[in-house]
């Protein structure tokens, strides 16, 4: 039922907001997967092996996220939302870095990658606003305001001794995108679970 009539708009319900958030989170992960495929399609097998750096080095791995269904189902709605909000906030700067890097990336698909990185950056920010809106609706007191030092700030690189040669840029880009792809899968799973709980 449209919420806006002649006289005013009823406030958008949390269930509706979560449904919209789930559509954005789905897109976000689908886009990050497409970007990863763009990137991987042009790498020699040897380089791919070098790329398999452990994602435990991702800057968000310090955030203790659940790792199976039982753990996720035990978390409250606020905890899950806060976790999603934290993950989204922690990717603001690194995504801007990926947008900048994509422009000069020595990669045949860098135009497509540039568009996707810009879209990822914008959709992540968009989803963060939506999750904040939902959190505020559920907890107007703002107690949920979490401190972002649960996640070690992104240090501009994955903590490796990165050279500035072409291969290093590619490896660093690939590693960061792999981290984001995994986190966007977590975000998508948590938001869809929240949507399901809310209906």
């Amino acid at each position: 039922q449209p919420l806006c009539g002649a006289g005013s708009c009823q406030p958008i319900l949390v269930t509706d907001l979560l449904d919209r958030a789930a559509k954005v989170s789905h897109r976000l992960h689908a886009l990050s997967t497409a970007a990863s495929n763009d990137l991987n399609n042009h790498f020699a097998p040897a380089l791919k092996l070098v790329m398999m750096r452990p994602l435990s080095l991702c800057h968000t791995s310090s955030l203790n996220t659940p790792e199976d269904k039982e753990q996720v189902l035990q978390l409250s709605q606020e905890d899950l939302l806060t976790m999603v909000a934290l993950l989204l906030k922690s990717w603001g700067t690194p995504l801007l870095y990926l947008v900048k890097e994509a422009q000069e990336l020595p990669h045949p698909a860098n135009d497509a990658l540039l568009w996707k990185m810009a879209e990822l950056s914008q959709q992540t920010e968009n989803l963060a606003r939506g999750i904040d809106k939902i959190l505020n609706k559920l907890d107007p007191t703002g107690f949920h305001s979490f401190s972002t030092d649960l996640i070690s700030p992104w240090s501009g690189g994955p903590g490796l001794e990165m050279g500035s040669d072409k291969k290093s840029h590619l490896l660093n880009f690939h590693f960061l995108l792999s981290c984001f792809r995994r986190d966007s899968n977590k975000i998508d799973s948590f938001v869809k679970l929240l949507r399901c709980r809310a209906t």
Partner: protein
Amino acid sequence: GQTPPGRPVITECRSPEKETFTCWWVPGSSGGLTTKYSLHYKIDGSQENYECPDYKTGGQNSCYFNKSYTSVWNTYTITVIATNNLGSNISEPLYVDVAYIVQPHQPENITAEFTTLDQKPYLMVKWDPPKKADTKSGWMTLQYELRIKPEKGLIWENHFAGNQKQFNIYSLIPGEVYLVEVHCKPDHGYWSEWSHTTYVQIPHYMRVRD
């Protein structure tokens, strides 16, 4: 004589893909003076007032909200103010939730192929969703309706196709030229314009009893 401007009316706001939207208004009387129009909006009942970010892209008497100004998380209260040297006049507010004002662009690549199955002749019509609507990721779900009529015919025959992107039509007149058009609509929203017309000639086939 010269008077303050008449009251403008916001006619509609539409979004083609739930990512941007445009509002249009109709000016009231100008009161015989040069009259300026400005669109203002508030978000979710907060008192902060913003002005239209782009009066150009949508054409005359319009305001275009690009991606960064478009939010599906909030509702908008929109008004238009007409101002001339003798005063101003404000429109009735229009309340907008972007998720409910979607009017997609038309479907594309309509093809119509005459074929038979089991000696039963029928026309298989296929189409693609409008390019701008992201249906793949589920961001938008579209329903379709198709209409068909003989070239010299007056009345369209409409067929609702649900979420299908193809539709089979039976019992067509052999030798006739038919016009086929498709339009689409999101779950909550407005029918698009009809697509361009596709013409198809039905061959002179022998009609077989069903």
